[in-house]
């Protein structure tokens, strides 16, 4: 009787107890935690050199304050609007092309019933992600060279005129967007495949009983089920919208395509790092970070407004 009368009390959440109880899991968290502390949070202190005339000998603290001069130098640079245009073009372009390609690839892999074929495609699609852009440049050069590239050989075979893909302002943006999609689609597909694995199989079975074809299953079950993941990936990509891919561009660009290839990061490399203007480089980094954060906040707000439950926070 006594037990029946006792009030059921919910213990107060205790983080310390939780950590002790799940110490193995929290131990795993330690590595990324330390990584973020050392490489992401500690350097924030140094961001103050964006407002300073940074002199290494005087250090971060000792350098003189110059207000927004570094930001003004960036905004007033001769190519500012062109850099911004190119950066946004490639960032949005990569999202528009790469995201659907990754989703399609993940669905194709998920739907494939032939185990060996599925694993082979999956592995082959991942591989380019692990190649550096130096190697990728060699591959692209072998494919696209106007005199000996395989693609131009095919064009010549059909009587066409070879195209210098890497130095033509019309072709270059497509080379950048498509080569990025090719390189990263397998890797980006991993997260979608993981999301697909979590879909309740009974939904598909029920749909098949009801006579739904493959396209209908994808449209009415698969895509809605992974929508939160798609939104999350999209929001994360928007957060780095001003990172258009330095390594790729640095390897592929050349003076004749600067007008469509020079992005904020390549400019910072030349003007900031090669010319020892670290204050300027930091100012640009800070500018990119703030824009990215604002975009994430706005996008997240919009997502939570129009699709409840899909937002990041």
């Amino acid at each position, binding site marked *: 009787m006594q037990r029946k009368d006792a009030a059921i009390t919910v213990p107060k959440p*205790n*983080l*310390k107890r939780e950590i002790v109880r799940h110490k193995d899991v929290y131990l795993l968290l330690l590595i990324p935690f330390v990584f973020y*502390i*050392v490489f992401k*949070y*500690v*350097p*924030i*202190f*140094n961001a103050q050199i964006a407002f300073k005339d*940074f*002199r*290494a*000998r005087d*250090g*971060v*603290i000792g350098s003189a304050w110059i207000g927004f001069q570094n930001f003004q130098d960036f905004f007033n*640079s*001769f*190519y500012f609007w062109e850099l911004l245009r190119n950066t946004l073009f490639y960032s949005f372009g990569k999202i528009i092309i790469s995201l659907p390609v990754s989703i399609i690839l993940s669905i194709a892999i998920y739907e494939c019933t032939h185990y060996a074929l599925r694993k082979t495609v999956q592995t082959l699609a991942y591989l380019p992600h692990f190649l550096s852009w130096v190697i990728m440049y060699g591959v692209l*050069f072998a494919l696209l*060279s*106007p*005199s*000996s590239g395989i693609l131009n050989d095919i064009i010549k075979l059909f009587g066409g005129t*070879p195209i*210098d893909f*890497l*130095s033509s*302002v019309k072709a270059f943006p497509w080379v950048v967007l498509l080569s990025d999609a090719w390189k990263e689609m397998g890797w980006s597909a991993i997260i979608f495949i993981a999301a697909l694995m979590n879909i309740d199989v009974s939904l598909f079975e029920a749909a098949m009983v009801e006579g739904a074809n493959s396209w209908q299953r994808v449209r009415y079950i698969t895509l809605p089920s992974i929508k939160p993941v798609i939104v999350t990936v999209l929001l994360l990509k928007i957060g780095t919208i001003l990172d258009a891919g330095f390594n790729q561009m640095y390897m592929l660009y*050349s*003076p*004749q395509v*600067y*007008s469509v290839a*020079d992005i904020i990061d390549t*400019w910072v490399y*030349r*003007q900031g*790092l*090669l*010319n*020892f203007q*670290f204050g300027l480089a930091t100012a640009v980094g800070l500018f990119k970070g703030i824009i990215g954060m604002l975009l994430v906040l706005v996008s997240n707000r919009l997502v939570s407004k129009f699709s409840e439950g899909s937002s990041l926070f």
Partner: protein
Amino acid sequence: MKRLLSLLLVALMACTVVFAAGGSEKTTAVNADGTVTINLWYGAAITEAGPIPDDWVGYDILREEHGIDLHLSVLPSNESDQDVRIQAAAAGNSLPDLFMVSRPVLTRLVDQGLVAPVDDYYALMPNRTAQQYDADSIAMSTIDGHSYGFASPGSVAKNEGLLIRKDWLDNLGLEVPTNLDELMEVMIAFTYDDPDGNGKDDTYGYGAYIESDATLKGYPGARLFPILGAFGVDGLWCLEEENLGLNVYKPEFYDAMVYIRQMCEEGVMDPNWLTYKKDDFRAAWKQGRFGIMKEQNAAYAAEANYAPFDANFPDGEWIIVDPPKGPEGLASVGAYDQNYRIYAMSQDAVDAGKAEKICELLEWMSSDEGYFLCGWGQEGVNYVLDENGVPVAGDLGDNAFSGTQGQVYTQLRNMVFYNSDTELASRYPTYTTATSGKTMSALTALREMQSKYWTAAIGSGQMPTPNADVQRYYEQSLAEFLSGQRALTPENWQAFLDQFNAIGGADWNAQGVAYAQENGLVR
């Protein structure tokens, strides 16, 4: 729990300040064992080989006989990457004690107060100074009246030449071209008349890649110098008194651009020239893609470099020719500067009292012991002396200074070599090619290349460099003219020059002119 989180937050903030404010490892001058640690960042002599092994006897000699604990670190082989690494270390105020640095970067480090003047230290190295440092080399490291580094002789000057496929000329019954008109005829024949007789349309007249910088090799770069030289505009700067300034302002530069554009329109330029990297270009001539090029002596004639071409084309033959004459009778293989490798001492090293030991290290490197040890390794292990006293590989196999095992012991040789006849004879031996049995020598090629006419542009390497926007505008505009994106007309050219001046080109030119006049670079 709140307390724990608060403590964590405080610790994090403390970490942030400590890490951010720190970063520079200051070493004291004398270690517990009485040695002085010297951190040296050097440019590797053989970039594709590994670093000097830990068992290098030089470490022991320096420690035991000179009290120097030497720590070596290899710089990246690419010049831009070298600059970035040095400047990244500089930004963290953690430059090594002694390091190789380019002149433009040195200028910035001096401005930051990060490197020490070395005027007083030459006297501490009498032997090395006599061997390596003369007035020209000291001028190369002089900024605002003080020498800020030790500039050793770099690669041999005038070590490139204009080469043409003699077998292709013979196959087509053509003579070596002597002027630009004849050159165009030969290039057209090489492109369209199947000079290699393989029945395929797979050859081009001229091959090149963009090899440019902001001091000597202005865009479109050194590989087109023989063409630019025919118009008297090879090199970024003209240092002649009557035409002092950037060559781009000379009317003849426009004429040279028109000629190069014509080469592109005629289809005689290998169309990959705008996208080739150096290695692609070198692979291309070894595959017989073009019949005329400007190439460096060793890249052309050294045994390992010539071997693929020899295997592919046993009957193929390159010859070094005179540069073609232009409309005014001018001709030049290219503009040349004296090449130096500057090693600077960080201000921190001097403040820590290491300057004298650094000088002792450098002086030892130029002693007989250090010179041979750094240049060729150990006698009997990595080299033997021939009857002329020239170090040769002999029968030492892989352990020889030229072998895969032994070459790593010579990674510091560029710090001791000064392009003496002994060094060149050792570096470029005469050999017989494996497939065709030709007798080849990169040294013979070098001497022949040096005998051609070159344009002196001594001091170009010291000239001021433009900011990134000006340099981009300059290079992009010329590239657009050459690739046909922008029509190469007098009106468009003038518009380009006007805009170039407006965004900073005129200031850059004025700074360069003033610098050249103030520093006695005008001829």
